[in-house]
């Protein structure tokens, strides 16, 4: 199955695949952002590979490691084939300022809320999404919490010796 996926993707999209990786038995392809929707479309239409299930959309923030990762943000698409019980990953690197990518909602309805959560927590904008609003954080909160430069904002706990001072917020 691993060989079939590799040969299929290399034959149709050979020049857009930057690298292939296999860590602990998981096959992942680093691709360019423009070919995301065509690759997913062709995987959906290919009846033999039968990759029809979008399991997850994850976003990572590599602040401080931008040179080796070719960009600050990394998006990981987690695809699964039900008949072959095989999982594969598509990884995309996006630059730090104004990260944008096309949405997958025309292909999979399940991508709707997953992409909203990625926008809310990491700040990556998805073009063409029907309802790009905050989903988890309160409306007053500005910024994107899962970025590395957003502080955790934890407070000093109050004991008996500092109970009269207001709690100081440590960033």
């Amino acid at each position, binding site marked *: 199955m691993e060989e079939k996926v590799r040969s299929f993707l290399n034959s149709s999209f050979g020049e857009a695949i930057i690298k292939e990786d296999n860590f602990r038995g998981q096959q992942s392809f680093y691709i360019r952002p423009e070919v995301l929707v065509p690759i997913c479309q062709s995987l959906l239409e290919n009846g033999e590979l039968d990759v029809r299930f979008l399991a997850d959309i994850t976003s990572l923030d590599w602040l401080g490691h931008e040179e080796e990762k070719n960009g600050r943000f990394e998006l990981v698409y987690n695809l699964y084939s039900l008949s072959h019980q095989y999982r594969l990953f598509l990884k995309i690197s996006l630059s730090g300022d104004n990260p944008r990518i096309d949405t997958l909602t025309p292909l999979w309805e399940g991508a709707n809320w997953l992409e909203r959560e990625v926008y809310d927590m990491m700040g990556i904008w998805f073009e063409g999404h029907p309802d790009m609003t905050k989903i988890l954080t309160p*409306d007053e909160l500005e910024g994107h919490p899962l970025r590395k430069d957003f502080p*955790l904002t934890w407070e000093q706990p109050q004991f008996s010796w500092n109970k009269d001072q207001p709690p100081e917020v440590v960033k």
Partner: protein
Amino acid sequence: MGLEEKIPDSIILTQLDKMVNWGRKWSIWPFGFGLACCAIEMMSTFASHFDLARYGMEVTRASPRQADLMIVAGRVSVKMAPVVKTLYEQMPNPKWVIAMGACASCGGVFNNYAIVQGVDRIIPVDIYIPGCPPRPEQLMDGILKLQEKIGKESLKDRREEWGRRAV
């Protein structure tokens, strides 16, 4: 009621106090405000194994306008805080609040941007129950202490000025 503040201090009023407190503490109607994991332990306490109905809390009302005791069970996030305050203000006097669990008392395990560090920053709390989540027996112990506290109240207290009071 405004009438009892105008009656001078006398023995009739203390007997009236005792009777009213006895009636109030044995028929509390809880407003189970279950938010997270502590809500499941609260439901276990109301169920048949650790039956809470034998202490008079037979009926849990869903609407705040018909309830006496608000048990804040679970973590209060920043988005939920205005809702908690609105619900507390909708409850009619006399009302009491129990902060159940570590997250409602002081923020608990979660010390970050998204959780209010203790529900007593928003509403006045009478009893704090530690635990993550507290066992049903701990919740019942807290409720019995609340009943002791109600027994010491007086009709002449001004309820609107209540803040955090020591037992």
